[in-house]
């Protein structure tokens, strides 16, 4: 599933990077398109607006879609393209699939010939911030204000789960439609726990009582993808938000001076360090990739593993029969955590975009409108065992312990949802240092203070660098 916001860090896997050699961003279009005659983009062709065609799609205009071929696969896109073809039988609509979004599409952006819709996801995602910053994206408000596919009396935006547009909102405008919905947490195999008569811990104290028992049973209490420290960001940052409250994460994202030098950060880091120093880690996990560590966890070598809700789908092929994957919110760290037990990080992911220079902007928006129809959303949930941002899309999904537990904790969390953007997708230089610091922490080479110094310094550097465009959020 590889599609969550910030998933560019999640989904890395060694070859991706080798593959990623890639195109260095699209070149100075100005200079080159002068001789290129490229830059053929305009607002795109349009047709006549009508009740059934509220976005005024030109009926014969071809529609070119690029889908990220990740954990969701491409079957759902096939289905949606067919829906589009049914609605516009005269149009030639097709999609292509790739894992290397950025490598393949940056030259096309630079050349002024981008496709009409892009599923901009995966490790090789084009940074949304960069695209927004370059005015390369279409504002999605016409789509959101349009009548929904199923009921002309309800606007598209009213068919969505609450707050799911926040992630794609930059400076007040929605540029990205994050179609999937991801819950983060720590995972365990309920079957193993039942057999050993262990209770999943709700507090850190309970965890610390349980961990020695797990270890005594010959299982490592904790595994994580140390090669990609992004994954340990889940427990660290979730705890920061849970202990210190949402405002701490908002201050961090807004680069407020000394935002990282708060007790919540230190408490969270020290708790993680206890995992390291008490010998509760799967030996070698600090250098393992996500697939390696996830497989070790599924093979029963470790009891807990931090990950997003794509885990079940991603490992489907190699999950031992009888495994009961279950997600757990972060345990209470202190008696005075600002957020109650059950607080989660849950976000919309899998960003779909319509390039500003697409030849068929209206068609691109219409394709998204079709994707947000009940029919398409239901098909997506069935095809991918995943939630989408359309209300009720997963009502029909059953038979998966992982997704059932995700649904359960997500409902239980209510409004107690956390988010952070600066170290997942806003500021790449900061992400880099945050990752490096976390890697050192997990290898036992950093103390909490060293971690904080390094990350704070990176934040300060971004704040002071006038060449980096800054983003801001209030909630």
């Amino acid at each position, binding site marked *: 599933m590889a599609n969550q916001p910030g998933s560019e860090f999640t989904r890395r896997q060694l070859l991706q990077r*080798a593959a990623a050699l890639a195109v*260095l961003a699209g070149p100075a279009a100005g200079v080159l398109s002068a001789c290129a005659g490229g830059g053929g983009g305009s607002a795109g062709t349009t047709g006549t607006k009508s009740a059934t065609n509220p976005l005024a799609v030109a009926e014969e205009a071809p529609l070119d879609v690029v889908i990220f071929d990740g954990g969701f696969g491409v079957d759902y896109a096939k289905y949606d393209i067919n829906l589009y073809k049914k609605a516009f039988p005269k149009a030639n609509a097709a999609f292509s699939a790739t894992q290397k979004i950025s490598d393949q599409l940056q030259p096309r952006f630079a050349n002024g010939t981008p496709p009409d819709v892009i599923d901009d996801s995966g490790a090789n995602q084009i940074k949304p911030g960069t695209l927004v910053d370059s005015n390369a994206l279409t504002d999605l408000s016409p789509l959101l204000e349009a009548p929904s596919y199923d009921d002309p009396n309800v606007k598209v935006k009213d068919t969505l789960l609450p707050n799911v547009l926040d992630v794609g909102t930059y400076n007040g405008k929605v540029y990205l439609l994050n179609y999937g919905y991801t819950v983060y947490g720590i995972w365990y195999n309920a079957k193993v726990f039942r057999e050993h008569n262990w209770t999943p811990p709700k507090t850190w104290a309970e965890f610390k009582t349980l961990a020695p028992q797990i270890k005594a049973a010959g299982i490592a209490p904790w595994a994580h993808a140390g090669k990609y420290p992004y994954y340990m960001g889940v427990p660290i940052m979730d705890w920061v938000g849970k202990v210190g409250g949402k405002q701490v994460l908002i201050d961090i994202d807004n680069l407020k001076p000394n935002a990282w030098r708060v007790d919540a950060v230190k408490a969270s880091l020290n708790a993680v360090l206890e995992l390291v120093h008490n010998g509760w880690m799967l030996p070698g996990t600090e250098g393992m990739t996500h697939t390696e560590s996830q497989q070790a966890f599924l093979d029963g070598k470790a009891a807990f593993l931090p990950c997003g809700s794509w885990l079940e789908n991603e490992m489907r092929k190699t999950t031992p029969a009888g495994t009961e994957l279950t997600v757990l919110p972060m345990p209470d760290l202190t008696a005075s955590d600002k957020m109650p037990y059950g607080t989660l990080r849950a976000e919309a992911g899998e960003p779909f975009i319509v390039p500003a220079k697409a030849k068929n902007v209206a068609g691109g928006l219409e394709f998204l409108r079709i994707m947000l129809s009940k029919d398409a959303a239901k098909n997506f949930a069935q095809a991918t065992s995943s939630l989408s941002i359309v209300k009720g899309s997963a009502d029909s999904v059953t038979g998966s312990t992982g997704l059932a537990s995700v649904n359960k904790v997500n409902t239980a969390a209510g409004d107690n949802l956390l988010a952070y953007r600066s170290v997942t997708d806003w500021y790449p230089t900061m992400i880099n240092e945050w990752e*490096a610091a976390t890697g050192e922490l997990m290898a036992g080479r950093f103390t909490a203070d060293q971690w904080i110094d390094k990350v704070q310094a990176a934040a300060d550097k971004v704040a002071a660098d006038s060449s980096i465009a800054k983003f801001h959020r209030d909630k």
Partner: protein
Amino acid sequence: MRFRRLPFIAGFLIVPVVLYVIYVVSPFVQTVFYSFTDWGGFSDTQNFIGISNYTRLFQDDIFLGAVVHNAFLLVLMPVVTILLALFLAFMLNVGGREDSAGIRGVRGSSVYKVVLFFPQVLSVAIIVILFQSVFRTDGRGLLNAFLMALGLVDPNKPVQWFNSPDLVMWCLLAVMVWSGVGFYMVLFSAAMQSIPKEIYEAALLDGASRGPTFFRITLPLLWENISVAWVYLGFIALDGFALVTGLTPDTGGGGPDHASELISNVLYRAAFTQGKFGLACAMGVALAVFSLLLAIVQLRITRRDRIEF
């Protein structure tokens, strides 16, 4: 001999030169141009900002660290590869048992020559996958499993290889040497075979043992091959992109904590994830100038007299 000489020269050069100018020279010229701009990668415009990208480079700790790591590889990789290749080639050609047939290579040397060359034909993607499994950091890694079986490594504290700041560069070096040695071994071995055997036999009759034979005879006679090898290896040492991004930790590789950053992957990250295309071009130009200097130095060393017609 001047007869129709110029048309001939022009006729032979026109196609290669035109192709080269269109597809190689002009893109790099454009790159130089971008290196003087603040272009981010997607905008329609860029501003000319003079040399600020270059001055910025010299204040960038990560880039400077990458230069140091590249220098480490630039010095050690060719030296280790060449020494190993020489040693293996020597063993193959004159290292064998001395018998009635005189000086010869070890048994099975023709098989070794084929097998040891294999890494040269593997795509780097395959090499990355192989070594990810070899250097895996838990007990399922080939090396760790091997060392644990020998009792050299505590199963609870497997070696961290690429995830250890002290080992990571050495591991990269090992992978580079692994993939390069076979080629140069075949190269040196072929060269050694063209050295007349009588020279060796005379030396042996004079009572010289294997070591002095190698240093007094083989090495000087191979000197030119060695220095050509050094140039090739230098270029390889300056790149290393696929290995470092594929095998080392953190986003785009270069970890842990920047312990293995190379110019190529810092450059890639700047252009690709940080939206600093102009800066990345400046890094690329710096890298190109660096390797060009290396090439010039080497060409001076290995320079030959011109053949005149």
